[in-house]
């Protein structure tokens, strides 16, 4: 029983904020790598955003990818990517790039592929996204990301102070950029599910940051004379067990999803796993050190009544 707390230090006393320079260098490198990759390699956009075809088929005999590639390659429908799914070797994922022209061109390509594959295959999944819808989904996804970060900032500003809002926004943006950057660096498919994952990561990261800030605010009222750097460290340390346990349980749940949830969700689960790690990192090493550079005391002492429960603490 309670193995975890025996493993964690009873009263941790890490100098998180003192290591801020190292943290900033690491953070800077992560962001730099992400931005450079996004700028040069870009994202491997899935058909949700790019338009095109995606088919998952099951063949009766073991699928012969080479033969299939030849058949589909002769259709003059541009690039066709094949990928084997599962263990049996009967399932193949077919991706056909967006056809030049309008929605009807996509439809025609779909018919061509179906005719070429003939009767022998079973269609487990067919997705066709025309250029119009692809553009709209991309716009909506980008809007959702931008708006949610904005809304979160406004909420934090409203509940805390503007300094916290800035810290929270930088930490959240950091996580979003790092996750999108990771997908760019690894060349993983970026589709609607990943947008949902990124927004979830933003939600998780802000959740973590708000919990830390909540403690900072409380401690500012409690310890009026403590130097800011010690106060930030104290707050992070007090929340350390919670951060690890919540992060751990979320990671376990998502790990189960990643390993057992099937092919459709694996990209999504992968993004969340990374997001939980980076979100935990950023709430300690990005969100906290930023507060160090703001004069938090001035706003608190001006507005706050003397803390009542100091005696108890």
């Amino acid at each position, binding site marked *: 029983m309670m193995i975890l707390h025996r493993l964690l230090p009873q009263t941790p006393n890490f100098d998180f904020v003192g290591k801020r320079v190292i943290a900033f260098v690491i953070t800077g490198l992560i962001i730099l790598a992400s931005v450079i990759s996004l700028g040069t390699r870009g994202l491997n956009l899935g058909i949700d955003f790019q338009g095109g075809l995606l088919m998952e088929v099951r063949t009766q005999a073991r699928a012969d990818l080479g033969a299939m590639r030849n058949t589909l390659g002769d259709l003059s429908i541009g690039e066709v990517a094949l990928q084997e799914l599962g263990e049996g070797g009967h399932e193949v994922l077919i991706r056909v790039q967006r056809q030049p022209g309008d929605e009807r061109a996509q439809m025609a390509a779909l018919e061509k592929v179906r005719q070429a594959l003939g009767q022998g295959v079973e269609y487990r999944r067919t997705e066709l996204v025309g250029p119009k*819808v692809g553009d709209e989904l991309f716009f909506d996804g980008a809007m959702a990301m931008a708006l949610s970060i904005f809304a979160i900032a406004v909420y934090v500003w409203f509940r805390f102070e503007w300094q916290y809002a800035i810290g929270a926004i930088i930490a959240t943006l950091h996580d979003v950029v790092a996750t999108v950057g990771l997908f760019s660096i690894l060349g993983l498919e970026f589709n609607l599910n990943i947008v949902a994952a990124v927004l979830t990561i933003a939600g998780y990261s802000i959740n973590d940051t708000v919990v830390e800030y909540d403690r900072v605010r409380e401690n500012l009222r409690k310890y009026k004379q403590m130097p800011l750097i010690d106060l930030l460290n104290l707050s992070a340390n007090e929340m350390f067990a919670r951060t690890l346990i919540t992060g751990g349980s979320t990671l376990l749940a*998502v790990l189960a999803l990643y390993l057992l949830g099937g092919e459709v969700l694996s990209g999504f689960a992968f993004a969340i796993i990374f997001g939980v790690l980076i979100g935990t990192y950023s709430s300690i090493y990005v969100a906290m050190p930023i507060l160090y550079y703001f004069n938090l005391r001035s706003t608190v002492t001006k507005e706050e009544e003397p803390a009542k429960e100091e005696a108890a603490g």
Partner: protein
Amino acid sequence: MHYSTWKTVSVLIVCLLGFVFALPNALPGDTAERLPRWLQPVTLGLDLQGGSHLLLEVDVDSVVKEHMTGLVESIRTKFRQERVRYADLGHDGTKVQVRVLDGENVDKARQMLREIDPQIDVSAGDGGNFVLTYQDQALVQRRNSAVEQSLEVVRRRIDELGTREPTIQRQGADRIVVQLPGLKDPGRIRELLGKTAKLSFHLIDDSTPLEEALRGRVPPGSEVLPNAEKKSPEDPPSYVVRKRVEVGGDNLTDSQPSFQDAEPVVSFRFDTVGARRFGDATKANVGRRLAIVLDGKVISAPVIREPIMGGSGIISGKFTVQAANDLALLLRAGALPAPMNVLEERTVGPDLGADSIRAGAIASGVGLVLVMLFMVAGYGLFGWFANVALIVNLVLLMALLSVLGATLTLPGIAGIVLTMGMAVDANVLIYERMREEYRNGRTLINAMQAGFERALVTILDSNLTTLLAAGLLFWFGAGPIRGFAVTLTLGLFTSMFTAVMVTRLLLVLWIKRARPKHLPIEGIPA
């Protein structure tokens, strides 16, 4: 720690209701079907039960263009009747222009143009030039009714196929969403919806040989239409057809597939107006050829041997049985006012859906066990309390999804798994706070009380921010992503309830029973 009786009772009632409403999800499918309507399992999305999702766009611009063509034709007819000489009659898709040649007729022409349609603005320029435009309101109205009509036709065509529980909805200005659960092959639906099925009967224009017409010398009022079924080399590639519609497909009352000389044909019957027109046309043109035109192609051009007065006939166009069936169906369901494009199609086979459910269930189960073990490793007995709250949370979540009629999608299952991981956060915050307060010298009961109260602010703040993100995800999310946002949002609510209310109830009961001396999660007695 205090917990009033009415609070205890209401928490228990909520939990009980949750179990009742979540129960159908645990029953086998045929048992659940016999339950009353208000007690049904959660609706599965198309990605889980298999089926087809189609997003169609009605090409409304073509409706406007068609109106323009109609306007041009009626101007031509009127001017000819009244012997007004004109030139440059035509349209560019948004406006119709014409130049009246003789000066003394300009006033008369203006009067005639104005009388055609009150919804048309007629503006006169120099030298007898006229420009006719539809009023904006009229255009909006026409576009709108085209979409409404299309919706109706789509509905009739799909009903004819007998698909179970189709959903057909209008979306936005010119789009239609069709959802067909359980449909295995959307190819036929797509083919049926892809056809406008506009049928009309025209006379063949014999005045000009086809070769000459193909060289560009098409007589005014006629056009060259391709032959739909060119089976043998003697069949002409196309026909010169009068533009004038003798009878249109909107006058059909019924059409059925049948056989003639062992060949599949389509028989049809006109309504009274159609029957009279068809009778008149055939009576006046015995010996000439009648073109049956479907979607701009001639499907057959038989010679009229005798007047057809009965109002019924057959179309023989070298059909296959399937093609005859489809044509009969399309004619029965009526023509689409405008062509439609498929903007998006997502089809999942029932096998893959079942696989996804299985994978989702396994992942959820394993995730749940892992999280529960983790909580016990972290908090011992209190971890079990948190686990009870977590299970109640899942039950309530399923109950809410079922009662609200929400659709559970594959990303929705991901939302549930994620909720499990994140739901314990509230418990973690409360327990950690208790430990702190206890370590700071409070008494046991005091520390637990303070743990709840102080953690509550944090829980609210952190959950509300996540809720904001989930809400926006729902707002902007498309299709399955919405399902994810729904479970995530509902999961946040249920987890706040269970972590705060249910855990608290359990702790109060525990204190009463066990009369503890120290906080078990702190290990060392203070």
